[in-house]
């Protein structure tokens, strides 16, 4: 039943706007249209053509709004089902009222993303594309939007197809040697089998290294601000956000809980997390804040270690450095306007050392750039060739394919061909899982077109 019922939702953002769109998808779309909407011209809906008319409450006959309506008949619609769109005035009250009328016709309020899910279930878009549409809607930055758009256009699917092509070629060779032992097709051409597998492997690893970057573009970077109390972390946060988000006092330990804010810079979403200063304390609340800060350390993409440039490197700074072992860190030396007493014993532990004055904002733009530069290889992402993985599901499937191919390469020396074929099929299935394809008779087609078979 769930699959076949009709759904409706407001498709424009909540709040008052110039226009409000109510979208209906499913068998009942036309019925709903004819019930709530009366065209000024005679005759019912013509598919894909807007008509002007009024929306009325069928029960009372009361006129609710003037509106434009369009019915898109299956399968030429977003979901491949019959889709009705009612474009009414954008007042929040009106839109809610119209939606209520639609729902009164017996249709169900759509779940989040359900229109897109139907488009996928009905075969209009593949999994990657469906996921990309979700990403377009949820894009937090320009770069994320671009990436999603490209995935929707099928760039990733196309690259995946290339990987499949290589694997199919290798499998066809293996299968030919298994199934046609008496045919004169030359001795096992290990070189061309491995060549195909290797090019699949290199495409896979190229894709996999983009995952980290893709994820960052999609989800943004999380940057953890840590340091001893009163080093100026909260002032820095306020400067980065250009607003007084965090409470700043001269009292050490003012920040207790984690403060989280996102900015967009150079097309990249950066999520800053300001934390409690790290020190020994008997204050239970402050201690809890410090624990929370330390818990975030392994989860952050980057850490800003804030030091007080007017003071010497202290015991507490050392405590902090110990807690950050093995992480990507930028040293931020604050209070650069004061006489400097601070020095770092080992600068190589840091990606960069940036002096700033949080109070005046000096050096903060340089810091933002330094942060971006750690992640955002703008030259690569701007190129139209750039294809990136951004979903864990894709990554997992490709990692599994890589595993099969590794097994294949290791076994090449002493394993039987039919076992190698099993590895190749495993890899093909994994890769196909990204786009929802599985290998069928393609292997045989390739064999017959590449070899002269026929004893």
């Amino acid at each position, binding site marked *: 039943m769930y699959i076949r019922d009709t759904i409706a939702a407001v498709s424009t953002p909540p709040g008052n706007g110039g226009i409000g769109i109510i979208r209906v998808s499913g068998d*009942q779309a036309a019925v709903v249209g004819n019930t709530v909407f009366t065209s000024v011209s005679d005759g019912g809906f013509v598919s894909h053509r807007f008509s002007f008319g009024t929306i009325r409450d069928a029960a009372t006959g009361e006129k609710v709004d003037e509106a434009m309506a369009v019915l898109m008949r299956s399968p030429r619609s977003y979901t491949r089902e019959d889709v009705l769109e009612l474009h009414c005035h954008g007042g929040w009250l009106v839109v809610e009222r119209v939606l209520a009328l639609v729902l009164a016709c017996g249709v169900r309020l759509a779940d989040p993303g359900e229109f897109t899910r139907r488009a996928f*279930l009905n075969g209009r878009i593949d999994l990657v594309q469906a996921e990309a549409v979700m990403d377009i809607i949820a894009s937090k930055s320009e770069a994320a939007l671009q990436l999603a758009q490209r995935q929707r256009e099928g760039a990733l699917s196309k690259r995946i197809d290339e990987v499949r092509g290589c694997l199919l070629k290798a499998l066809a060779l293996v299968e030919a040697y298994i199934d046609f032992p008496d045919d*004169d097709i030359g001795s096992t051409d290990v070189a061309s089998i491995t060549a195909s597998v290797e090019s699949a492997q290199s495409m896979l690893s190229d894709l996999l290294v983009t995952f980290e970057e893709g994820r960052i573009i999609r989800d943004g970077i999380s940057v953890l601000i840590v340091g001893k109390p009163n080093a100026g972390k909260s002032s820095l946060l306020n400067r980065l956000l250009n607003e007084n988000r965090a409470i700043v006092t001269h009292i050490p330990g003012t920040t207790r809980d984690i403060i989280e804010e996102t900015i967009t810079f150079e097309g990249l979403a950066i999520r800053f997390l300001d934390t409690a200063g790290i020190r020994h304390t008997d204050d239970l609340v402050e201690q809890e804040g410090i624990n929370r800060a330390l818990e975030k350390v392994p989860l952050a993409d980057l850490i800003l270690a804030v030091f007080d440039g007017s003071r010497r490197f202290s015991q507490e700074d050392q405590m902090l450095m110990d807690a950050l072992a093995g992480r990507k860190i930028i040293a931020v030396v604050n209070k650069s306007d004061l006489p400097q007493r601070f020095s770092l014993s080992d600068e190589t532990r840091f990606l960069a050392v940036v002096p700033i004055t949080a109070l005046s904002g000096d050096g903060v733009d340089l810091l933002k750039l330094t942060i971006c530069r750690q992640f955002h290889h703008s030259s690569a992402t701007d190129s139209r060739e750039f294809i990136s993985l951004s979903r864990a599901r894709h990554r997992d499937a490709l990692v599994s394919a890589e595993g099969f191919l590794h097994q294949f390469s290791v076994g090449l020396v002493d394993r039987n061909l*039919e076992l190698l*074929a099993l590895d190749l099929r495993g890899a093909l299935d994994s890769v196909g899982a990204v786009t*929802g394809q599985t290998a*069928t008779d393609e292997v045989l087609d390739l064999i*017959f077109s590449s070899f002269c078979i*026929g004893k």
Partner: protein
Amino acid sequence: MTTCDQIYDVIVVGAGHAGCEAALAAARMGCRTMLLTINLDAIALMSCNPSIGGLAKGHLVKEIDALGGEMAKNIDATGIQFRILNTKKGPAVRASRAQADKQLYRLRMKRVLEQQENLDLKQGEVTSLCLDAAEVRGVVLRSGISYLSKTVVVTTGTFMRGLIHIGLNNYPGGRAGDQPSVGLSDQLRDLGFQVGRLKTGTPARLDARSIDFTKLETQFGDHPPRPFSFSTERITMPQLPCYIAYTNPRSHDIIRSGLDRSPLYSGIIEGVGPRYCPSIEDKVVRFPDKDRHQTFIEPEGLDTIEVYPSGMSTSLPIDVQIAFYRSIEGLERVEIMRPAYAIEYDYVDPIQLHNSLETKIIHNLFHAGQINGTSGYEEAAGQGLIAGINAARRVKGLEPLVLTRSQAYIGVMIDDLVTLGTKEPYRIFTSRAEYRLLLREDNADLRLRELGYQIGLVSVQDYFQFEKKRLGITAELGRISTTRLQHTDEQVVVLARHGLLDIQKGTTLEQLLKRPEVSYADLAELDCVSRETSEVIREQVEIQIKYKGYIDRQMEQVEQSKKLESTRIPQDLDYTSVKSLTTEVREKLSKNRPDTLGQASRIPGVTPAAISILSIALKSSSWQGTDLQ
């Protein structure tokens, strides 16, 4: 018109490799059976190559044998060269192949049929089926007589509207020297069957006396020859070699010069030919860079000078044939005894069959063999056996026997045919089987013997012998998993010789056998009980231990797919009522009418998403007619 008063249980139309298995199975299962053929002297005739088996085909033959069919026994009794192919590769892709003495092969099969209880053999051409609405009632012969039956199995091979081509000449024929079958396929088309046209070909038969064999490579069979049948103890026929020859650039020039008179390239032949068994002109045209093509010169029998040049089928005119065969080194003065020819014939798209091989349109009518678009004796025999079994089971009111894709190549083949249909002659390959490691020749009996016995085709003795083997395997597997190395002086010497001194005392024989460098023969050196183990048990134990990881992995996959495979789709399901399906998917499903969700998932273009939709639709009992409007 005369009607015979006896009502048969099963009538089999056609006595080729499919028809013989079908008739024998039905009769052995106790059904009153009649086998009809256009020519009683051509029963089980090998119309093309004089051999049985090969990759995946050998697997089919062993499966037929395990189920109680005749083909394996017949080739064992009449085979004149036996070889195991792919011995350097793993056990799953090893396959048996044998050359047959063509005449002895057909004569022995005829004798078996003649001696079979419940089975009548008759000569006659069936021109139409007797029908009662959508149910078959019997057959009508050209002579005017009609025979009534409860079920009919049609195995017409290349005979329906057969048309033979040699160069631009063509004439009706079911095979060189035999009349075609005319009328039956017209009736099938009128009944709503999708009747199509396929093409196949056969090379010339050459006079061995005119061949200089000293210029050819000799290929001997295995010694000792290993039989196909699980019931055959040893091969007693004299064994002969084959010879290998090659075409050369001059041969290819001759072929190219004759293409203007090729029915294939002048558009006279409409039927689709097999891609895996192309004619020589096809090979030359499609692979112009290849400067030679191999041919095996195979004997047609012990007492004949006729030989068969495999891979050299052609429909070129006779003068081109002579010139081209004579261009081959060693064949410079060769004489053609029977010319090569191509044949076009009618087939019925197997998509219109259930996986029992019963047609979806006409009740109690079964199709098997080339009528279903397959090629090959083994493919035909496998289908014939299943069709015969299921016709008999229908008569007895039993559920049909359906082999799954994880159970047998026969299951893979029939599932491919009925799920996907075919537009070209279908041949089995090991790569068609997704569970290839499970479907081995060596375990065909372990997979199917029990089933054959339950159906009633495997004799008590054969079954008893099988049970003994099965118990022996289980016992030996148990024994080696509990027998531990004691590191006696004798054992240490053997271990040292094999470079296995790192093996700890107390290691089980099973653990030892798992090591890639250790074979069962090595165990026999270490342990006196192993020395006593019979060859068949050794083989099974070794394969099952060495491939355990892979076999287990495939078993898991089988388990996972079971849900899809066992979810049945009602035959009258109205796909248009499942609204969320795309038009394309809906059309495909409506055309293919899969029996199960598993079948549906193998139809190209039916996406995983469509399968989820279908499965949801099937779960909701209200799929039928509950349109929201």
